[in-house]
């Protein structure tokens, strides 16, 4: 007991009214092994201490980022949909709508390294090598114009990087700036005259009203009726005409998809099902892929992938089929959708 400061003990005892009396050690648990501590203790500190061996350069980072990160964070770390933007926002912190990114806001590079290594990619954490983590972080820095394209990140170069907002934080000062001010308990005549409404609620009803399940239920069977008819008539192997030039454009767009979906010779299921032959295929029917229940049900109800259904799905995957497991925000541009459909057609010969 003597090792605790007196003040601390007083607070602790006052608050912990029903706390058990401090006793001798109970001898519970067992000693952690060095290997166990090493496996879990991955902390990296702002001064770079505890960084692992390894290194990664910007060019490698661009490739690794495109493979594992761009589906949510965009090819240039600019963010897709509601997913976090990792680049940009410099000098916006005092604006009305500040953009907080690794470059504009994060004070320490160690935080980025630590978070990528422990928690990314989303859904497949701790699958990257330390070299890949170094490379991804190097690429994020490059996307924020914080390093040149020939930069290699490692233990040795870690502290060479200047984080623009490193001095942008101060420790909680509410005890000085707020607590002494917020003490007045006025009971009568607290405001001059009657009050007026200055702001009314923006979302008046149910905030989820926009995303109705009805739309999904009615649109999916309707689309499938049309699609099912020609498939029955034409039992021969389907050959689909496609525009090669447009398909080539679509291949570029497909970069956003390929972290999860494979296509082409020998393509196998990954995070998402392989997409060879997706054209005119019933939804939820690739062998060996574990689909969501809603996707299986939609397929059984007749949902077939064609220009109309794929366009709808790719524009807004979550609303189109509620509860499906594709974690992709959707393609914003019609031209991108058109192109990627042409690309998928080209792999459905």
């Amino acid at each position, binding site marked *: 007991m003597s090792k605790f400061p007196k003040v601390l003990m007083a607070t602790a005892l006052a608050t912990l009214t029903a706390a*058990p009396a401090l006793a001798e050690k109970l001898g519970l*648990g067992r000693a952690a092994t060095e290997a166990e501590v090493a496996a879990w203790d991955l902390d990296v500190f702002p001064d770079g201490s505890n960084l692992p061996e390894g290194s990664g350069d910007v060019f490698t980072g661009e490739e690794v980022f495109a493979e594992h990160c761009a589906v949510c964070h965009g090819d240039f770390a600019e963010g897709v949909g509601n997913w976090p933007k990792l680049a940009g926002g410099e000098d916006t912190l005092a604006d009305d709508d500040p953009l907080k990114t690794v470059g504009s806001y994060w004070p320490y590079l160690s935080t980025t390294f630590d978070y990528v290594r422990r928690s990314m990619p989303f859904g497949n954490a701790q699958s990257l090598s330390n070299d890949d983590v170094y490379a991804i972080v190097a690429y994020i820095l490059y996307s924020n114009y914080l390093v040149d394209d020939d930069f290699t990140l490692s233990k040795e170069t870690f502290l060479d990087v200047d984080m623009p907002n490193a001095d942008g934080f101060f420790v909680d000062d509410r005890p000085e700036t707020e607590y002494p001010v917020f003490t007045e*308990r006025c009971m009568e005549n607290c405001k001059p005259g009657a009050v007026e409404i200055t702001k009314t609620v923006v979302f008046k009803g149910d905030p989820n009203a926009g995303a109705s399940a009805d739309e999904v239920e009615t649109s999916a069977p309707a689309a499938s009726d049309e699609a099912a008819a020609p498939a029955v008539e034409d039992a021969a192997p389907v050959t689909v005409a496609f525009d090669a030039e447009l398909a080539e454009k679509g291949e570029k767009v497909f970069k956003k998809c390929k972290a999860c979906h494979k296509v082409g010779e020998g393509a196998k299921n990954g995070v998402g099902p392989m997409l060879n032959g997706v054209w005119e295929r019933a939804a939820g029917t690739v062998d060996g892929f574990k689909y969501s229940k809603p996707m299986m049900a939609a397929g059984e109800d007749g949902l077939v992938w064609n220009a109309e259904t794929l366009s709808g799905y790719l524009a807004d995957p979550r609303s189109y089929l509620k509860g499906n497991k594709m974690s992709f925000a959707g393609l914003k541009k019609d031209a991108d959708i058109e192109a990627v459909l042409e690309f998928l057609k080209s792999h459905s010969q």
Partner: protein
Amino acid sequence: MTDSSAKSGASRRAFLKGAAATGAALGAAGAAHAEGDPLITEVQDWAAGLGDGVDATPYGMPIEFEDHVIRRTVEWLTADTISSINFTPIHALDGTITPQGCAFERHHSGAITLRKEDYRLMINGMVDTPLVFTYEDLERFPRVTRTFFLECAANTGMEWAGAQLNGAQYTHGMIHNMEYTGVTLRTLLEEAGLDAAGDLAGKWVYVEGADASSNGRSIPMEKALDDCMIAFKANGEALRMEHGYPVRLVVPGWEGNMWVKWLRRIEVMDKPVESREETSKYTDTMADGTSRKWTWTMDAKSIITSPSPQMPITHGKGPLVITGLAWSGNGAITAVDVSLDGGVTWQEARLAEPGKPMALSRFYLDIDWDGSEMFLQSRAMDDTGYVQPTKAQLREVRGLNSIYHNNGIQTWHVNAEGEANNVEVS
């Protein structure tokens, strides 16, 4: 696509359906019938026949008529439901204890399934002996049971920019209050031994979870030894998976993000880690672009849960119960005031029982409503002398770019029909 106005009208009706249906039924029951109320004068099925036997539901669920009392999310707030939040239906609850099944959720990598048999807790860093505990080990330490609120730092965050969402559930529902059972963090740190840490002033513990997000946070040693708990029960039963089954950290009065779920590691160190959750998130940007960090405490706050947008007055003029919740991360609630006129005059409400430190208090104000419009506000006071500020007072200090720690006074505009809407007033 289709007729969106018809759709949103329908949604609005569906949104209020639960409350309105209840009101209609009660109104009918209260009305006088010449021959008397058939619910009284006629023998009802339930009075003649038999109900369910025991064990009809081995684990009891609320009766079907309460199926609107559920957590709700706001789909467009986050990119997906895995790293997302939903809200406690505080508008429909009373008392102070939040049932686990409707206590809000906030995950960073989803709610994981972790068996007790697979659970391990490591204590390492500046301790005499780095240790590993199993779940069974934790149950053999001397135990404590205490009640605390947990509030997400982002509760009411949407409302910084003005009145946004229409309902106490959405504006103030990232809070719950449970009775936790577990072991004090101090007990476990003592077991590993703190001699190796030397002078404990300026030392930290880093806590992290077993899920993919790990959600690591640095906590000053003083707090760790004061009142933090390693909890494995809530409201008497095992934690729900969405709240960290089998073991979570309890950090009384401090922002919910620090209450690490699926707690797997506690490290004693001489400096904070400066993790993602304590730098890029959970920091508060001021008007000049600089940001407060380590804003751990949740300041005193209150909310009228009924009447409120999801709980309109359906009985017309006359006796009306105004009720709500108040809490403070700095201590116990000592009083709550309610204003019917948007903050010009205030009257003290009744506390259901004396405030407990860092736990929810329930307040009531019983009035005779004359049917005129009201601007309902509540204001909490705690035992440090703090008085809950207005949103304007907060904005004066912090500007408009803050997200977290919005504990400003909320206003509900109640019209003559008894409908309530979220507003801000002069």
